[in-house]
């Protein structure tokens, strides 16, 4: 592995860890979901560097594409539930 590839790998690994930390520690759920998708995207680039393009394609399509959108769909459902709960408590008071 050449020096440039090694340096790029290190930068990507650090970016992956930072994105994972943002995803865990961040306050906003949409940003956390996007950061989790970014972890998958960086992982797929790392898979290409490690000479496994098949795994990289799966990771990019499923890990960073579809699962991110699945999380958003579920987030929409959960948010709706929360709003319903608030509405019910509001009607009880009123």
């Amino acid at each position: 592995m050449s020096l440039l590839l090694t340096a790029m790998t290190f930068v990507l690994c650090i970016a992956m860890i930072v994105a994972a930390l943002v995803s865990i520690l961040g306050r906003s759920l949409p940003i956390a979901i996007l950061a989790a998708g970014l972890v998958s995207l960086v992982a797929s680039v790392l898979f290409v560097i490690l000479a496994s393009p098949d795994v990289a394609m799966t990771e990019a399509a499923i890990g960073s594409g579809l699962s991110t959108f699945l999380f958003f769909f579920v987030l929409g459902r959960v948010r709706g539930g929360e709003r319903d709960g608030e509405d019910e408590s509001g009607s009880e008071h009123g």
Partner: protein
Amino acid sequence: MVKRLGALLLLLAIGGIFTSLLVGYVPDTELNDTARYYAYHTAADIGSANIVTAIVITYRGLDTLGEVTVLFLAAAILGLVLARGRRQAQARRALTPVGELLTTGSRVLVPLIMLLGVYVFINGHLTPGGGFQGGAVIASGVLLLLLAGPRKPFAHSLIAAVESLAGVFYVVIGLMGLVLAGGFLDSRVLPLGVLGALFSAGTIPIIYTLIGLKVGAEFSVMLSDLAETEELG
């Protein structure tokens, strides 16, 4: 406090294990026995230019059948869990209108995305990628359609037919291998052809096309289930 200390100790222990793995890591200078067999015999045995595809479809074909089954079960269970919500979703509330950018963009992009997905799984035995990757790409095209037109009816029966027929034909081709070639899911039912040609490697292109259709249909059903029940809110 005790909980935090325990978590910290656990993290340190896991970190220690991984560090010892990393410190003791020596890259292999040559292929191990299994890898050497695959690397030197795939072209002559299976006729597939992409060794990974030969392993996934022929050498370890039963594992792939299992994976497809697991994905099918996941899609079926998700549909079962969300079925109650879908019936209630008849009384739909008004959605925010879809933007012009998304509508026009989806008209341009969806055919290209679908084409890329089909390209990926038809060329699975020649280039990186294959049924699972191509199916996921097709499902992302369906996702874009769902986002651009949430009101449009989703052809559940057509998708279910594609999904079931692809699964049935996959198993039938596997059984044909049992009769006409070396064993279950042996791809040498058809002639191997020229290495690197589109119609080569026996039944691998057919099996990967079926897997691509099946995986794409399963992911599309999952996404549409979630999108349709999302309106419950």
